[in-house]
């Protein structure tokens, strides 16, 4: 059984307008998303800005009011608040936020910030609690003198580490990492990602790793879901997604990874333009008449794509030929 099973998750935000301020329409931030996260793995969720990644992540932590669908954990549907309470759900599932500065209360000292989940879930003695906070700071590579400082006294990378320390504090089973490094420069990105990996090995944590950067996701994730306009357009293993992408949206994202090799820059540019051309010409083939993605169909046991059955098969066999 998977650690978490997300089934047909929908989160719609009402749009109110008119004289009576009635609900006239809705933003379909997440519109029918299903995937499973296994214990100990890092599951990647990739998509452009506004595709609904953060909303999906927040729903899994229980921060978002879900319109329909279910999220099963230990056999209970945690979209219902009473089930979350019954399971002490947030003891096991924590979140690292996209914006490290706004996710740390500017009026609280680092000690109180990291100890917050401990105070609610573990009720340690004062000394044990302080010891745990010091150990957590040590694990994320910060000195003990951070203890009585305030968040604005740290750099972006250090703040993100504090966010990680808070998420790890109760030794959870799953951490939702919402673009944990997208605000950091490249060298610091690598540091933070590496110790997230280290913590994962040592504590046996699963991550739902949200990112718009396929380069970073490749470094972190075994299984990946590609999200577009609130729906999943492709699910697969790292190999499926990077070496046999089927959906045009995935291909576009892959083409957008910057090429560092100077010699192949021209070739890269050409292939990117080619993908863009296909995307412009064949929109109607890849999306239904409302511009939404099709339901997912399985092409191999690990790989699924959001296309009509016939086109999916056809593309898959083309891919196969190219391979052969």
């Amino acid at each position, binding site marked *: 059984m998977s650690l978490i099973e997300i089934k047909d998750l929908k989160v719609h935000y009402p749009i109110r307008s008119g004289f009576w301020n009635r609900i006239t329409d809705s933003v379909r931030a997440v519109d029918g998303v299903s995937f499973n996260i296994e214990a100990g793995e890092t599951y990647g969720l990739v998509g452009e800005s506004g595709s609904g990644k953060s909303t999906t992540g927040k729903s899994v932590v229980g921060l978002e009011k879900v319109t329909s669908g279910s999220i099963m954990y230990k056999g209970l549907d945690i979209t219902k608040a009473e089930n979350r309470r019954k399971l002490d759900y947030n003891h096991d599932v924590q979140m690292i936020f996209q914006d490290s500065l706004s996710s*740390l209360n500017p009026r609280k000292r680092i000690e109180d910030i990291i100890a917050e*989940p401990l105070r609610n*879930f573990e009720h340690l003695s004062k000394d044990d609690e302080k010891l745990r906070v010091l150990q957590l700071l040590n694990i994320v590579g910060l000195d003990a003198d951070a203890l009585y400082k305030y968040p604005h006294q740290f750099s972006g990378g250090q703040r993100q580490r504090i966010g990680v320390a808070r998420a790890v504090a109760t030794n959870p089973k799953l951490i939702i990492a919402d673009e944990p490094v997208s605000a950091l420069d490249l060298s610091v990105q690598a540091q933070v990602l590496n110790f997230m990996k280290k913590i994962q090995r040592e504590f046996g944590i699963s991550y739902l790793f949200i990112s718009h950067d396929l380069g970073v996701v490749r470094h972190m994730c075994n299984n990946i879901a590609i999200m577009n306009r609130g729906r999943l357009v492709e699910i697969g293993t790292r190999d499926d997604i990077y070496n046999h992408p089927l959906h045009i949206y995935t291909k576009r994202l892959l083409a957008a990874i910057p090429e560092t090799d100077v010699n192949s820059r021209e070739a890269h540019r050409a292939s990117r333009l080619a993908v863009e051309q296909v995307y412009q010409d064949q929109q109607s083939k890849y999306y239904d008449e409302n511009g939404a993605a099709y339901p997912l169909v399985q092409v191999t046991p690990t790989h699924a794509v959001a296309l009509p059955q016939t086109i999916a098969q056809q593309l898959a066999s083309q891919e196969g030929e190219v391979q052969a």
Partner: protein
Amino acid sequence: MAENFEQHSDISAADLARLTQEAQAEATPSTAKIIWSEFKADKPAMAALIIIVGFILFVMIGALFINTPKMMETNIMGYFNQPFTADFWLGADSAGRSVAKQLIVGSRNSIGIAIGLTVISSTFGICWGLISGYFNGYIDWGMQRIYDFMMMLPMTMMIIVLVTIIPHYNSVTLTFIFSIFYWEGTSRLIRSRTLAESEKDYVAASKASGTNHWKIIFREIMPNISSLIIVDCTLSFAENIGVETGLSYLGFGLPSQTPSLGTMIANANDPNNITQYWWTWLPAALEIIILCLSISYVGQVLRRAADSSQRQGSVN
């Protein structure tokens, strides 16, 4: 699970005391220290603070030594006595009553009402605004309709009517009557900031850490709007001194046998008093101006202390 953390960190219970001490040395100064250094850096504000605190203490304690009913007795011998004499430091009014003593007792009454009114109406307004802004949805809707209803009532008229129909009232009942009508402005202000603050990720992080709503409202959000609260409270205090004074001036505040700054300023209603007997009303008017200016000075310093980018004082 604790073992898990022991294993992966080289810090153990033995290091606790030493590390705590190291951290303490690097600790950021407390808010009280920051505010104090801010006052030290701004001499006029320091003077304003001393004036306010000194004056309030003086009238509160001084009023204890004055026998009010006796003071308010008519004394024909003192009819418009000149100021700066041995018996009447600030002269006497038309009934021969000492202006200086009236000023002390009157200030005590007026400032007491202003403090009481500020405490009650601000506390209520802050709670109302925080709860309304945080919970949003139906709760917010209901609370805002009550707010709208209260705003619709003509405030001054309602107070005058209430004061007229309540047979025996004193400073305390008057404070409560005022409080019914003075929390709305604060609540609206606090609500709008709370709405913005509730959207921030640290609130989401607290929810995800299992903290309950009340703790989030009063321990997480409230400290973050403390600068707004402090500034609003100081300004309402200055304003509230005017509330009682204004109504007493019109004759609808404290009963006439109870001196207040308002009843003293009302002496200026008589054109004779304005020109000839200036000492009957000028001290009270000056006192109000000086107090309100000082309070707004102190409010500015508090706001600067709350906003790190505006600070002038240096801590350490």
